[in-house]
């Protein structure tokens, strides 16, 4: 307790003395509260990072909650939380002037893969073209035999509208086409995995963070990933630019981040990088081809035109 007090005092005086001199200050003396809400796709990473960060910066109290990208952005905008986790750019959810107040920290990228139930993969569906994907997810193609698979009805197993995972998939895998047709909807990715397992002829999509990590292998029983245009969904292919279905994960702050928050974000993009990959996310700095993934170059007018 006494040590904490001293630490706090030191911190306070240090802050007063030099607001700008903060660089690699001693993390163990840092204190503050950071609350992160938003994207459920990013939540596991932020939570894992927060757990580890607590060991090196015990004075910083970090809380992590999901709630959806839109809610996260709204929370950070109105000051309910210090960080808004989001799968999408703030401009896509908030008014332009509200979005302008926020500062974007792109902490990592997340890839999405098309996944099918095992019977479909066993029936010969290993790769699909973009055109085939669009045709399947808009409900035009309804039997697997039309795309080189078994004579089986296609069942779409998706996330509901509003889901960041869905938005990313529509944007980068379907070229902006909106999913249509009858589909089972799932509250979260874990539920979607279960639905794929027990529905024959089903197809859906998952973030790589639900596919790649060692801990995910059990949940992936009875589910197979499908390549897009013969490119397998792997981190390597995302890094070398051949696999395009990925999006930046954002941690938004209102204005510049305070010291504790900035230190936490720096930690995720810095020392935590190895863990980022083992959790199935892509490290931003390794991305070589980012055309179309930065906010400005995103297929323009798409969100407004819907």
């Amino acid at each position: 307790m006494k040590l904490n007090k001293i630490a706090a005092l030191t911190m306070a005086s240090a802050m007063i003395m030099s607001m700008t001199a903060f660089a690699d200050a001693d993390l163990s003396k840092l204190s503050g509260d950071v609350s992160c809400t938003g994207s459920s796709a990013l939540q596991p990473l932020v939570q894992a990072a927060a757990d580890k960060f607590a060991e090196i910066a015990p004075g910083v109290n970090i809380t992590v909650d999901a709630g959806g990208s839109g809610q996260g952005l709204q929370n950070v905008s109105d000051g309910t939380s210090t960080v808004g986790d989001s799968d999408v750019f703030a401009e896509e959810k908030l008014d332009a002037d509200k979005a302008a107040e926020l500062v974007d920290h792109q902490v990592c990228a997340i890839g999405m893969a098309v996944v099918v139930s095992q019977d479909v993969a066993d029936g010969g569906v290993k790769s699909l073209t973009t055109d085939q994907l669009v045709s399947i997810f808009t409900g035009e193609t309804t039997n697997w035999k039309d795309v080189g698979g078994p004579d089986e009805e296609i069942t779409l197993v998706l996330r509901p509208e509003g889901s960041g995972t869905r938005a990313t998939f529509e944007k980068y895998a379907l070229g902006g086409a909106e999913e249509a047709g009858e589909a089972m909807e799932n509250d979260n990715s874990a539920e979607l995995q279960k639905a794929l397992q027990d529905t024959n002829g089903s197809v859906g999509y998952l973030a790589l963070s639900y596919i790649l990590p060692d801990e995910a292998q059990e949940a992936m029983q009875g589910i197979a990933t499908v390549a897009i245009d013969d490119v397998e969904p792997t981190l390597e292919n995302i890094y070398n630019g051949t696999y395009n279905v990925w999006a930046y994960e954002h941690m938004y702050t209102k204005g510049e981040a305070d010291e504790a928050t900035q230190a936490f974000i720096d930690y995720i993009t810095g020392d935590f990088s190895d863990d980022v990959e083992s959790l199935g996310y892509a490290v931003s700095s390794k991305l070589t081809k980012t055309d179309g993934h930065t906010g400005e170059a995103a297929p323009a007018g798409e969100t407004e035109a819907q």
Partner: protein
Amino acid sequence: MYSKGKEKTWKFFVLLCGLLMIALPIAIGIFLAVKGNALFYQYHHTLGEFLFTTTWKLKDDLVGGGKGGAAVFIVGSLIVCGLALLIAVPFSLAAAIFMTEIAPKWGTKILRPAVEIFVGIPSVVYGWIGMTVLVPFLQNVFHLKTGRSVLAGGIVLAVMIFPSITTVAADAIRAVPVSARMAAYGLGATRWQVTHQIVMPAAQTSVLTGVILGLARAFGEALAVAMVIGKTPAFPKGIFGQTATMTTVIASRMAELMEGSEAKAGLWTIAFILYLISLFFIFLIHIIAAKGAKKNK
């Protein structure tokens, strides 16, 4: 010891609790009405669109302009609950008659507590068992692509409402005066005739109350249904098809949507409709009870 001050304090306390009981549901109703009307006033959808069209594609932003047709969810709820009643009512009535008329001793001692155990089981447990036992079972027996279906939802709901209907019906049947039965037996009626023509007509209104209570519970159940129905926002293709209900669509979408957005407003509207439906059921029960009371006079 008797003390006037103490009595006043307690009287006030009890009154306060009573008023709170009345205020709370009214407050919830007002809250839902305020939240739910945004779909119509702020985002300019019509009630006709909401009730009679089938495309539910509302935007998760503050601009709006999506489509808000909830017919699929309303019909989905009606079908699944109707199916649940169809399955549960015969079983419930049979069980109620058995434990009161046929084996009253054994029925009260063993069957009744057994039925009451059902009531205490949380809905997530029903859903989970349905998902791991019933769904694969239906898939294998009927050779379906998936066992998640309207039928699975109906069966799970039926199991859930069976105890409420049974206990209310059993109480109603037991309340029929013994003298009425004795008179009929005295005239040479068989047990079936007594049950069918004397006891059941006399217990009718209370039994109906039990059925409506069961229906109300079925309408409001989200979790268990959501786990087995396949949550597909389209009209079901038959009994093995998938669909979504009013409660499942709220449960599955509320977490991802932004407060104040058009899509969230749509969910609040559905919640308000559910509130109105449960109000309607309560009124129905009271009307039936009042009619029954008149008839018995």
